């Protein structure tokens, strides 16, 4: 067993971090968010690097790598809070690749992989990331049992103004159009939950880093606040949430590629844990920053807001914990 990335996977992750560190600084995230727009050149660059299609098969013009590699990109994208439709487009592509017919794959995957179009993905009637400006959407039924692929123009899309201005959102209903996905919609949902968890892990990692830096510097009563045990213990709790979510998210991404019998449980585990971590860690980051953390001027709130939307997307901790219990109860009955 080796519970660590291969050298290639580390390299992908490092390269992504370096690139986004330069191209998606927190100042740029802020100005894009405040202008309620995306910086088009960033998406163009990510497309040129093949990010949207990294986990799409080479046959369909993608990179032919795994969910794990895609997850490392999303983690870094969450770390940088990059303003882009990467999560939505990747989730849409994974879903069509997972559950689509040959015709559906031929029609949509090459264009999604090349970045010619963008996609979105979500549960009917809920909030979809990047739906309004997308070209194609995969809509999963409320019970998670069936999926439909629909050209955005044929769907019922209403733009949502959410608390998270770093990303665009829309509520999607199926109109007249759409083409049923013949494959396993629940697997498509599980894959999307896994890569969303990866984004949350990145968000947590960054919020924690910002907090550690801040409490080392900020002095009160003549000492850095990071030397106070109450603050230290909060930071330790943030680390436990973050690293726990990381362990289970990497596990789920690995299961998606290597052992599908584990995927349903692993993805519920990842989304449950990462949603909890996202909400707790970013909230703690605001608290540890004190008054400044509550201001618009400080940057921690962007992370808190993204974490809230990601945590709620595809069901949060409670939804996925209920799923874990149902899986364990079924296994208990069959023993």
């Amino acid at each position, binding site marked *: *067993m*080796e*519970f*660590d*990335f*291969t050298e290639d*996977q580390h390299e992908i992750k490092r390269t992504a971090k370096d690139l986004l560190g330069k191209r998606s600084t927190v100042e740029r995230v802020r100005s894009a968010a405040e202008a309620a727009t995306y910086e088009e050149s960033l998406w163009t660059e990510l497309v040129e690097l093949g990010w949207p299609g990294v986990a799409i098969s080479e046959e369909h013009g993608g990179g032919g790598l795994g969910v*794990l590699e895609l997850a490392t990109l999303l983690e870094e994208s969450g770390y940088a809070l990059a303003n882009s439709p990467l999560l939505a487009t990747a989730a849409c592509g994974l879903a069509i690749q997972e559950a689509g017919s040959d015709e559906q794959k031929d029609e949509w995957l090459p264009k999604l992989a090349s970045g010619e179009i963008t996609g979105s993905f979500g549960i009917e009637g809920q909030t979809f990331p990047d739906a309004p400006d997308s070209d194609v959407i995969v809509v999963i039924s409320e019970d998670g049992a069936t999926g439909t692929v629909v050209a955005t123009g044929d769907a019922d899309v209403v733009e949502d103004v959410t608390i998270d201005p770093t990303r665009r959102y829309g509520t999607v209903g199926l109109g007249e159009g759409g083409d049923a996905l013949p494959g396993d919609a629940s697997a498509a949902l599980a894959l999307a939950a896994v890569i969303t968890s990866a984004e949350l892990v990145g968000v947590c990692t960054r919020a924690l880093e910002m907090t*550690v830096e801040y*409490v*080392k510097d900020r002095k009160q009563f003549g*000492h*850095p606040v*990071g*030397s*106070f*045990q109450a*603050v*230290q*213990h909060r*930071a*330790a*709790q943030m*680390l*436990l949430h973050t*690293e*726990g979510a*990381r*362990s*289970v998210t*990497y*596990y789920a991404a*690995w*299961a998606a590629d*290597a*052992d599908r019998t584990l995927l349903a449980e692993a993805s519920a*585990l990842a989304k*449950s*844990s990462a949603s*909890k971590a996202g909400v707790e860690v970013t909230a703690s980051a605001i608290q540890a920053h004190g008054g400044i953390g509550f201001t618009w001027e400080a940057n921690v709130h962007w992370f808190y807001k993204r974490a809230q939307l990601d945590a709620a997307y595809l069901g949060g901790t*409670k939804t*996925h*914990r*209920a*799923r*874990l*219990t*149902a899986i*364990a*109860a079924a296994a*208990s*009955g069959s*023993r």
Partner: protein
Amino acid sequence: MDLTFSKDEVEFRDELREWLAENSPGEEPRGDEDAIFAFRTGWQRSLYDSGWAAVHWPQEYGGRDATLMESAIFFEEMGRAGAPLPANVLGLLLAGPTIMAWGTPEQKDRYLTPILSAEEIWCQGFSEPEAGSDLAAVKTRAVRDGDDWVVTGQKVWTSGAQFSKWCMLVARTDPEASKHKGLSYFLMDMEQEAVQVRPLVQITGEAEFNELFIEEARIPHENMLGEEGNGWIVALTTLMNERSGLGFFLQVRLRQLLDKLVAEAVANGSIDDPVIGQSLGDMLERTETLRLTAYRGLSTITKYGQPGPEGSLTKWLWSETNQMMTQLAVDIVGPQALHKDNPWAYELLRARGNSIEGGTTEILKNIIAERVMGLPRK
């Protein structure tokens, strides 16, 4: 990343499972400390006779040169089989590796084999009434007298002391030196009048731990481990081995308890109560997070030679989860879980010690904040 076990790891597990199937230890007696000790001694003899007593030890000392992962597998399988810990668990996990690292050839010859065979049991004399997590505050004094050291002081939380032949003892040999520097590490013979053992009855009614009263005990100089004044460093070797592998035993036990609890909730229908369902989901999430984080920690050590941030988190996560889960059991099982003979009652009470023994959660959080995250000390 590959989370499947390698061929060697699978073979190791299969061989052990087969051996366990043929050599089941049977049911451990309850309540009677002497009977439990006798049972665990027999179990260790059986492990020893088949070469399973200390898989993580080098072959030259009677081990199997097991990798960290194999050692984890060993403890997982022991937990899964419901096997008890061996009688000399502190000797195998702590004293043995410390002697291997610091002992003279004579010391290694003298002590290692009886540790393996459970002929000589070991206990750990580190904690004192006024030095719990703060080892550098040790007050027990050792004064040189010819070829001997004369030791006086008090130790506490010494598990298994009443059965022990030897004690890993940290004592102050230089009262003038600064806190860390005046300590030395001794191998103390427990079989002398000057060492008195008094059991500490804990909230479960058992006495796993003891107090040691040491009044001018004599330790020959040749029983010093490492150099004089080097006790702090030698003790760190012991502490670094403190949870090697054992964590995997504990977490498998945790999972078994959780599976029992889920079965109970299915049987009495409480699983359909969404509040219970949520709480069980939380426990499932925590238990799996613990298992996977522990494996990730092992991979990091194996690959990079040093622990990553995850390594310091598992004991905290385990103890908190065990406490929450045994509390949840009271809700699921009902008030009869609090009847003295109900196994959940014991688990509930015993779990209170988890966040204290081997370093309190508060101290662990300090360590994580300061050493892992680099926050300033006050």
